[in-house]
């Protein structure tokens, strides 16, 4: 339980800490959460489920069942690492000494952890909706002026999606003993009701990821939010949806999978190509990365519905990779915007010469985002493409074009902003905290790129358990 309570506590304390200690306080806070999660890892048995609440059933079926297995713990650690990285990148920004902001970040972290640790459908839904509040307020209060319209769109979009999910949950609960994961899974569904339930979850997740064509809220929201908000959205919030597909959507309505796999894979891959092609000619670097994100997660979503051990472990590897890369890329975009006052590629150029450390780190990240060897993306993309390819070779080949298109837009963005003769305006090189954030990201990416087995061992057994129980319900 302490995993969840610590960020809540820090969120409250943050409201009264003097603002000149705020930055140090926020780093300490995120490190304490991370340490608490690591302590859990040290005594963790990857084949078992570990409960963190005592179970008691309320009379409308809410069980408060929370805990973690390998998949959950992986997401918990990821959340804590990314939160730390976000606060670290933000360390030299004005916002870092703002009480409300810091409190909201911790609040967000707590809600995310709740999502990943919930083994009760209603609880999952509550935490899922809870995450919307802090990220919305961060974007609203600290984002670019005049972003209200974009945010309203974002809010309504995700809210409608969530509503669909809630209906699905109630529908399946009507024939289950309680909202607990196991009880919901045990429900046998007719094919028709399975589609509706699957569909309700899918709309919620497809909007959050976002999958083509549910992505209309995403580019505007990403570009008008403050850096930390964009990072929270892309690195963590969309992972809830991918995780939700594996933990909730498929296990609860596996009967629909036979029919639904194809359309979901297709939507994912259309998104890969569509967003990739659109990214090629984007002139706004943040918007370009926003489309790149749609393109990358489309492939992960396709992998998530191709249910087998290899694909699902690949989904986790690639989720970790995408989170790290997203934080890095949006940090780089923000550095460019802050220091040069511009975000349009045609006005940029020549930064590499004046800021070599930044050029190196940004360059390394760009390479990681196009999945070169030694990066975790190399492994993740290899496995996911293989999964899609063995499902349907034609879709696999189309998905594979991300290899080419990804290189086109990412390298274009890098070269137009960094190459060429330096501009007369000064451009300060990396500050220590930014440098450290980049370094940690790179080290993690490389270590998972060389030893992906560590992730496979961590999530593999629980992936197997889940698949086994899904198969059991299907056989019944």
């Amino acid at each position, binding site marked *: 339980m302490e995993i969840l309570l610590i960020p809540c506590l820090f969120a409250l304390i943050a409201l009264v800490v003097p603002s000149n200690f705020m930055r140090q306080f926020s780093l300490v806070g995120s490190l304490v959460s991370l340490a608490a999660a690591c302590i859990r890892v040290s005594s963790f048995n990857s084949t078992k489920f570990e409960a963190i609440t005592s179970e008691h059933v309320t009379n409308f079926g809410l069980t408060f069942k929370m805990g973690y297995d390998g998949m959950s713990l992986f997401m918990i650690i990821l959340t804590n690492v990314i939160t730390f990285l976000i606060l670290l990148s933000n360390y030299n920004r004005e916002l870092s000494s703002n009480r409300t902001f810091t409190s909201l970040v911790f609040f967000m972290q707590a809600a995310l952890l709740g999502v990943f640790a919930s083994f009760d459908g209603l609880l999952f839904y509550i935490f899922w909706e809870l995450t919307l509040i802090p990220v919305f307020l961060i974007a609203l209060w600290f984002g670019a002026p005049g972003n209200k319209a974009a945010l309203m769109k974002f809010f309504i979009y995700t809210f409608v999606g969530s509503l669909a999910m809630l209906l699905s949950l109630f529908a399946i609960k009507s024939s289950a003993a309680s909202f607990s994961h196991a009880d919901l899974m045990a429900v046998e569904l007719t094919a028709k009701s399975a589609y509706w339930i699957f569909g309700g979850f899918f709309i919620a997740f497809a909007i959050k990821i976002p999958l083509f064509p549910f992505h209309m809220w995403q580019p505007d929201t990403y570009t008008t939010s403050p850096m930390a908000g964009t990072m929270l959205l892309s690195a963590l919030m969309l992972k809830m949806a991918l995780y939700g597909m594996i933990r909730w959507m498929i296990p609860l309505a596996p009967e629909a999978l036979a029919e639904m796999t194809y359309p979901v894979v297709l939507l994912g891959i259309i998104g890969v190509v569509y967003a990739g092609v659109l990214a090629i000619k984007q002139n706004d670097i943040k918007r370009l990365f926003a489309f790149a994100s749609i393109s990358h997660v489309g492939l992960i979503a396709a992998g998530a519905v191709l249910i087998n051990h290899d694909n699902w472990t690949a989904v986790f590897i690639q989720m970790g990779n995408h989170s790290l890369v997203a934080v890095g890329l949006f940090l780089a975009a923000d550095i460019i915007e802050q220091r040069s006052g511009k975000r349009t590629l045609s006005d940029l150029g020549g930064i590499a010469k004046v800021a070599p450390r930044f050029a190196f780190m940004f360059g390394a990240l760009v390479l990681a985002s196009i999945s070169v060897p030694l990066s975790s993306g190399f492994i993740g993309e290899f496995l996911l493409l293989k999964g899609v390819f063995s499902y349907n070779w034609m879709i696999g080949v189309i998905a594979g074009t991300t290899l080419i298109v990804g290189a086109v837009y990412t390298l274009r963005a890098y070269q137009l902003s960094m190459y060429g003769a330096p501009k007369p305006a000064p451009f300060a090189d990396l500050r220590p905290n930014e440098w450290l954030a980049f370094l940690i990201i790179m080290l993690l990416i490389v270590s998972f790129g060389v030893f992906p087995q560590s992730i*496979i061992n961590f999530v593999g057994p629980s992936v197997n358990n889940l698949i086994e129980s899904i198969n059991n319900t299907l056989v019944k």
Partner: protein
Amino acid sequence: MSVEQLIPIIIAIPLVVGIINGIYGRNLSKKIAGSIATIAVFTSFFLALTVFFQLDQSVRINLFTIMKLENFSLNAGLLVDNLSIWMVLIITGVGALIHLFSMGYMSHDEGYYKFFTYLNLFIFAMLILVLGSNYFMLFFGWEGVGICSYLLIGFHYSDAQKGMLNGLAARKAFIMNRVGDLGLLIGLFLILAHFGTLEYTELYKKVIADSIPLNAPFIVGITICLFIGATGKSAQIPLFTWLPDAMAGPTPVSALIHAATMVTAGIFLVVRSNFMFDYAPITQDIMLYIGLATSIVAAFIAMRQNDIKKVLAYSTVSQLGLLFVALGMGAYTAAMFHVTTHAFFKALLFLGSGSVIHAMSDEQDIRKMGGLKKYIPTTHLTFLIGTLAISGFPLLSGFYSKDEILGHAFEHSPMIYFILMLSVTMTALYMFRMYFIVFHGKFRGTHDQEHHLHESPKNMTIPLVILAVLSVFGGILNLPGIFLKKGTHWMSNFFAHNTNGIKVVHEHMESGTTLALMVIAVLVCLGALAVSYFVYVKKSNLPVEDKDLKGWEKVSANKLYFDEIYNFLFVRPIEWLSIKGHQFIELFILNGIVNVSTKSIELTGNLVKKMQTGKTDWYILWMVFGIVGFVIYYLLKF
């Protein structure tokens, strides 16, 4: 030390030194940064030599398991056999010489340490590529060399005039390579799907054990995919246009990556997978004709290029085409022989051109050179040797290796032999043309350039001399059996000894025919020499300005308009899609739907709002309407 211990060390040295240079290089003096990088590659070379002498059977080394999944597992394994160790010798040997050369060539460059970091990392990736024991390791190295190539082509990215262009060339190279990589990746997936393993040795056993019918669809699919990968990395039609642009990189890079080593990765891939290609004659034919077309097209373009490096680049493409012709005929050892000699003389020519460019204060246009013979004698002599070797001058290395491929071609089909001879003739012509224009006649550069003309320092000329010696005597490695009884075909026997699937294939021609072919080759070479001498020295005809070119010369100088065609067919449509897709699908349709739905909600709201008048008589009226409506509904229903 045993092979198992030596091989990981050979790979690790360039990696470790590369990382050291990358991190601390900034603080090291140029001399130290360059020296440790060069020494690292030399050390790897000498260690590889000791392995070479003690290796009598193939050795498989398992370093660690990258991942173990349910359906398959991937190992970081190494396979040392005669094929891979030979490639290691070429990579580290030529690589070390080029490192040495770079110490002089790059001495005025501020990114000195970075350059050597990239070079070392390239060597590391290339070693992984050839030494890996499975296709995943090969793919790892394959992508790795692509990255290093990208970084090195765009090395001078902050140049005020050419920075963006260099970046563009680098990007083009990387993206075209990625097209090929996708083919290779799909090939890997197909192999996994059909054989369940990517390990060469296991795969070999399975392929041999399964009686696969010739041209079975899946084996054709696999080999075609692998070949698509090879066309990217080894610059074959249709993916060759990146290589000439890659000349934007510093000249040692062109020598190492874009002539001697990386571009032969495609050849290596096919030779490594020869046991699968044997079951797919269709793919072999495709390979043969693509190679043939590339060879002739590139040679034709090279005829009227005036950039010293562009000529060499197209020459490389043409020679690689020749190699694919050899592979298409199943003459794997002949191909490997030519890979080796080509590495010697093409590295020599590129480094020679580097030395020329260095002397000419960065001038690359051969029209502005001339008469350099007396200013840079060592470069001149070695460049001449390189030119002779590539043109197939008797008894030089290129003569033997090219002859072997031509012999196979003649046996395969006289038509193919004839077309190849055309390409060989053009090769001799454009090489001698360049040689005479650069080194003979009067100096045509500016006064400033003439003032600065100087022979390159020792660390640049020594590699030239060594490579020149190798280019002269390289033919000894695989002497034809026509004059001698013993000591012939050393290399063919060497590869046949312990490399999966390689057999010694000799031509079965009578010695009369062989001799006749040799005489023809010699005559062609000497004829081209004489013609070029006559045209460019005696009559001192010089290349004219681009705008004055006519007929075939204009087509050749404009590279057969390949770039323009690709621009029209691929680049523009995709950019158009990107812009229009954003305007039309994204903003108009999708955003439109969202806007329409919000608008309709708003409208409904406005309509319903009007009913809330607050007056009781209106509400009673609505109620009456409601009741009447219900009554009518039920009446109609029953």
